[in-house]
């Protein structure tokens, strides 16, 4: 335990040292201020950008798109995962497909989606769903595979209805795996949506960054960038901690 805390302290110190190093080299002009602005200015720019309210529409657009894609991906992924798991032959066929899925950069389909659905929210949602769903499917499949046969026998012995079997046996036994899938799905949806906005879009935070870059507006660019990265890190961090708790509770029970 002590060792873990020590690692945490050193980790924070390393990160802080890197930030301070960046600050110093920006202030002394070792790094051109036209390339990278000092971290303190980034924070100030972020607070200014968020406080001014100009970004409110973009923030709303981006996060509602991510949330929608995430929810859809979970629904679709769990449903198809459960369905495939019931059909072993389909499972065998889907396996190599799922294994190769993430080797294909999903967002190369984005230009096609834009041509198909127009430049609105729809192609972004579809892109998010496309990149997040397989993670949920894989998690669901490995979760269902991990339910010990003896537990299913137990359910049969007690003559549980399918609904009760699911709630009382399958869900508690399988949960950590799908949860890992959900965690990945969130970061994939986030990456997919922001990448889409960044490459080709008229709204959202990704677009705001790309627009600021193209108009040489460095403070805005770094401010928005920092905001997006902070949100991503916090969201992933919360899920990471939650996942650890879930796994620990399982190993204890």
């Amino acid at each position, binding site marked *: 335990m002590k*060792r*873990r805390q*020590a*690692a945490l302290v*050193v*980790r924070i110190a*390393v*990160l802080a040292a890197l930030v301070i190093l960046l600050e110093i080299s920006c202030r002394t002009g070792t790094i051109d201020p036209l*390339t*990278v602005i000092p971290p303190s200015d980034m924070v100030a720019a972020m607070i200014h950008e968020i406080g001014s309210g100009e970004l409110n529409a973009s923030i709303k657009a981006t996060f509602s798109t991510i949330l929608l894609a995430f929810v859809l991906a979970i629904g679709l992924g769990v449903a198809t995962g459960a369905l495939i*798991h*019931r*059909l*072993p*032959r389909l*499972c*065998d*066929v889907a396996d*190599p*497909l799922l*294994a*190769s899925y*993430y*080797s*294909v*950069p999903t*967002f*190369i*389909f984005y*230009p*096609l*989606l*834009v*041509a*198909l659905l127009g430049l609105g929210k729809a192609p972004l949602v579809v892109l998010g769903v496309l990149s997040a769903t397989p993670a949920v499917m894989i998690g669901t499949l490995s979760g*269902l*595979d991990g*339910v010990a*046969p003896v537990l*299913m026998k137990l359910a049969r012995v007690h003559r549980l209805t399918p609904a009760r079997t699911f709630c009382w046996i399958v869900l508690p036994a399988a949960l950590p795996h799908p949860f890992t899938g959900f965690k990945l799905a969130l*970061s994939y949806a*986030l*990456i997919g949506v*922001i*990448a889409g906005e*960044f*490459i*080709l879009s008229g709204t959202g935070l*990704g677009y705001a*960054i*790309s627009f*600021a*870059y193209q108009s040489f507006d460095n403070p805005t*660019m770094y401010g928005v*960038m920092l905001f*997006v*990265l902070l949100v*991503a*890190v916090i969201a*992933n961090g919360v899920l990471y901690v939650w996942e650890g708790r879930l796994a620990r509770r399982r190993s204890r029970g």
Partner: protein
Amino acid sequence: MGGATGAPTFTGMSDPSLQSARAGLTARRLRAFDTIVLVLVLLALWHVVSKGTHGVAISPPLQTLIYLFSLLQTSGFWDHAVTTLEAFALAFALSALLGLGLGLFLGGRRFAGEVIEPILAGFYTIPKVTLYPVVLLLFGLGMSAKVFFGVIHGLVPMTLFTLGAVRNLPPVLVRTARALRLSPQRTIRWVLVPACLPDIINGLRISFSLSFLGVLIGEMFSSQRGLGFLLVNGMAQNNVPLSTAVVTVIVVIAIAANTLMLRVGRRFARRGDAAGG
């Protein structure tokens, strides 16, 4: 559930080796058949989608294939393909070598590994696309920005996989090496590398696809050459067969490379099991 139902049919026969060989052959044939069906279903789906949308977004499979063949005979296409390939090869080689070195180094030093690993894992999950403007400001438009962006994507998984492999090495292997008084070089050659190989190949596989992704994002966002540029350009000019053909090429390359490395990885993993047991 699922997997349990199929297994018992192949067991309990008189001549297990012959029986299992025959069963393996049938299973393989069945799988090949299923794969062909899957490919046909996907092609049919592609056809239906393109017909249903009157070809505004994707062109039908056959037409795309014909277009692709004519595209493959133009030198312009090869210019773009070679540009992408060059950037990707550099990015992948750098990610693989640096990641391997970093992973071996951090895996051997427990505390350093513990400090760095969560930072890398956190970096792995953030949307790195947003950092591309910084990369462009640092490197300017062109090859080096793309390569650097590919390395950003590919380096982290390679490092994490190697680190994990070294850390999870069974202590008995290291102890055996010490008992046999192997020199450090021999320990690496005969113990470390064979034991970590399956994980290293897995890391290479993920690193391959991610550095490919990084290079393509770079080309799609702001570049004048390469497959990513060709794709975005095809869409901007409303040249549907062109963008569909480029997407097809990218998908085929990605899946082929991934499948190949999965196979190699599995073979090494099996060999490791056989040697260990």
